[in-house]
């Protein structure tokens, strides 16, 4: 494959971008190709191949970002985007520095490029999932699974002389089961994905189908969730979405700089008990939220955001770092060349603690076990969050007892973070897709079991 953009083309575009002034200009070019397909009603369908090539050009001047993008990677296309980005500026031209190529090696080697794997094998994988999901029980009424692969080759050049790139391949499968008994209908879902090639599916990928079916079947026996405030034990893996929402977003520097985060002014303060240490790590090998560089060309890194309960760092992209006079933490991410980079999480997790999950549950007299979530949402400014529980149970006298349906956890970030009173010694990472400012990016979430002393469970049983 040829390079996404030649350095001479990038240099010319940067010069044109600064033709009417500006302190900084950048070209982000991208070539992507992907394939998705699904199985539903035991039929392979929705086979879809997509490709895109284009570039986004931005110019920073004063406090303003001027941005344009173009579909197409011909030099003329990219220059047109540069001209359009510069069109609204009214100053004297500025000179970009000559480009100095840097080629970071990706810590995420791809063993089996998915594009080289015959489509029939991908269809066969979906049929395996379907068979496993449907075979999990007579009450499985519906089963769906999906497969997605994408390769994104990106290049970043800027007026400070940076010229770098990344070659990113991701694969992901998802399974969703619907169980039915009389009038009761329940669903269960599970995913598996990574910054990996088709080798990710070597080790029993259909296990996610069985897991999705198990979740749906368990809920058939569920009773309505309780409503009220109680201790909550959050499961490992996708339970980490709780930390992603209630803390991660509030640490993104754009929210901080606008005063729209509950963590404003709290750097260095104790915001959690000392048993909580947490990271954002864009370098975890093969993880779903990992990349070699961010979408501004800064190397990704491991950032300790909570150190033994103390708020240790915010997450920066280039623009917010420039404002605070610090270095980017490699968190400038964007959905595609059609979007501006903003501070985003990569893989965010609470580091494992000391206690066995069973022991943590045994200490709860009456509470709720939120084993897995369907997702969540937070308003970083107020700290109010909400999570939909996809698999939940009552805890009675230190034991996990009956499954509950329809539970939602709500609360406030600062209170909930401070109320974490146990962190388990288990650990798991899961894949998610995070939305912010109208852009979706792949993120990893993780943790072991975590207990929150008191939290509001919103169920239907008053």
């Amino acid at each position, binding site marked *: 494959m040829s390079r996404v953009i030649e350095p001479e083309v990038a240099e010319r575009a940067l010069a044109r971008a600064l033709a009417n002034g500006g302190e900084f200009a950048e070209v982000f070019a991208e070539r992507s190709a992907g*394939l998705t*397909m699904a199985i*539903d*009603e035991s*039929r*392979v*369908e929705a*086979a*879809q*191949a*997509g*490709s*895109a*090539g284009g570039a986004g050009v931005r110019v920073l001047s004063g*406090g*303003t*970002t001027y941005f*344009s*993008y*173009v*579909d197409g990677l011909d030099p003329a296309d990219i220059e047109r*985007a540069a001209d*359009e980005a510069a069109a*609204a500026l009214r100053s004297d031209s500025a000179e970009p520095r000559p480009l100095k190529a840097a080629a970071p090696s990706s810590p995420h080697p791809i063993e089996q490029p998915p594009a080289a794997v015959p*489509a*029939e094998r991908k269809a066969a994988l979906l049929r395996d999932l379907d068979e496993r999901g449907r075979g999990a029980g007579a009450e499985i*009424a*519906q089963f769906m699974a999906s497969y997605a692969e994408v390769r994104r080759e990106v290049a970043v050049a800027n007026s400070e002389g940076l010229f770098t790139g990344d070659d990113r391949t991701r694969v992901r499968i998802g399974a969703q089961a*619907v169980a*039915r008994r009389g009038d009761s209908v*329940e669903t269960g879902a599970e995913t598996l994905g990574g910054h990996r090639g088709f080798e990710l599916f070597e080790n029993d990928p259909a296990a996610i189908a069985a897991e999705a079916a198990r979740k749906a079947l368990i809920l058939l026996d569920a009773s309505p969730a309780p*409503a*009220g*405030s109680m201790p909550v034990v959050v499961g490992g893996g996708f339970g980490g979405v709780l930390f992603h929402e209630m803390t991660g977003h509030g640490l993104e520097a754009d929210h901080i700089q*606008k*005063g*729209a985060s*509950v963590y404003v002014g709290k750097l260095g303060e104790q915001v959690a008990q000392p048993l909580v240490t947490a990271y954002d790590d864009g370098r975890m090998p093969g993880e779903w939220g990992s990349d070699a560089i961010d979408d501004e060309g800064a190397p990704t890194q491991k950032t300790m955001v909570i150190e033994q309960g103390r708020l240790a760092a915010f997450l920066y992209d280039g623009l917010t770092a420039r404002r605070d006079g610090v270095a980017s933490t490699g968190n400038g991410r964007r959905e595609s060349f*059609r979007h501006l980079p903003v501070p985003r999480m990569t893989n965010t997790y609470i580091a494992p603690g000391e206690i066995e999950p069973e022991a943590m549950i045994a200490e709860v007299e009456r509470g709720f076990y939120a084993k897995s979530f*369907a*997702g969540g*949402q937070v*308003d970083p400014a*107020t*700290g*109010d969050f*909400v*999570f*939909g529980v996809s698999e939940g149970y009552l805890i009675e006298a230190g034991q996990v007892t009956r499954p509950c349906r*329809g*539970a*939602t956890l*709500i609360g*406030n970030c600062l209170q909930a973070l401070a109320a974490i009173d146990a962190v388990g010694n288990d650990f798991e990472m899961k894949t998610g897709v995070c939305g912010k400012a109208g852009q979706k990016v792949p993120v990893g979430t993780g943790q072991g079991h975590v207990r929150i002393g008191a939290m*509001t*469970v*919103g*169920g*239907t049983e*008053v």
Partner: protein
Amino acid sequence: MIEPARRAVERTLAAGATDAEAYAVEDAGREVRAHGGEVESLTAATQRGIGVRAWIGHRVGYAYGTDLSDAGIDALAQRAAEVAGVADEDEFAGPAELPVRLIPDMGGKGAPEPATAPDLSDPSIAAYSLADVAELTLAIERAALEADPRVAGVEQAVYADSNERVAIASSSGISGEFERSSCYGYVQALAESGDGRETGLGFDLGRGPEALDPAAIGREGAERATAMIGARKPESRSCPVVLEPTVAASFVALIGGGLSAGAVQRGRSPFAERLRTEVAGEALVLHDDGLDPEGSASAPFDGEGVPRRRNALIEGGTLRTYLYDTYTARRGGATSTGSAGRGGYRSQPSVSTSNLIVTPGTLGFEDLLREAGEGVYVTDVAGLHSGVNPVSGDFSVGASGRAIRGGELAEPLREFTVASDLVSMLRAVRLAGADARWVPFGGSVSTPSLLIEAMTVAGS
């Protein structure tokens, strides 16, 4: 854009497809973000792309791309035919056929008028320069700051517009093109008080910037943020609930999703097997109208070229029809309701709502509160994508709002959930207010406030 679409159909047939359809879009868009009296970012760009469906017998595949050169379209055509070979046979798969017979109008008003598409393009988009819309965005922010001294700032004021040209062509003889413009503005205002920070969203939408009222957008954001100062949790109980139009719209959009024949046929809708049965209180009248002059989803034809129309969904408390695209209509022995939606050229068509419209009632907002007596007024919900089971219709979502005491608004409430299921909620709709507005969350919806007889409120 019709030329590349036609060429793509020809090339896909040449690549071995027995049928083909192409959908091409060109979209010129602008976005302005403002913060602290300054323009934070200005984006102006044109994007284009094309999506091709290829059928080989009853197998279907899809490919999309951004390269509209002859070579690019050739590659796309090859790829679409190639991936069709991976799919299993589906006897109902095939392109839309015209002329489309319209199903008898379920509302009993006789056959519908032939569709005349409203004018969807607003010249004020072209008349407003980038500097003009930047000024409009700054005006939104100023209005929020000036509305109330307790407004400490805004997270962001945003303006965005789009002028798109959409074309579709198929081997079954469909060929059409239209132009449509739209814009919106919003602000996220921040109010500070002794016990914390509150946010409030103000927004407006229309076909062009002339239709937006920046002062009203700013004021709404400020009012919503300051209204929440001092909010606390309500007591857990089951009580009457009044849904503000933006909240009602989110639920109406979920209901619209359940009325998709695709969800129904695959046994994934709470409305399956409820056709022509009682599903709602008499007060809830719901239409899907793909031709409404104000609706942002209006178009002369849907995502596969079938004319858009007005569909009566719920009238007299009865479910009148599901929404069909060509595939689900063939499969269900029905006729397309012009409901094939597209998320742009990057997605294949599937059944979706166009503009969902809840018929307003006659009672004012104060009357609705009086009728509620003791209850909760919900002004915001969160976690809809994770708190709703779209198959069973069960939901539990985070909410904030105000208490209703003695038929009047009382103290602000936050950090509680409302829970029910979609069908029970519809049946419990007692009154629709007169205060309808367009809301763009989760679809294009116009709805007034709704009074729900009872919902579970979980707080402390």
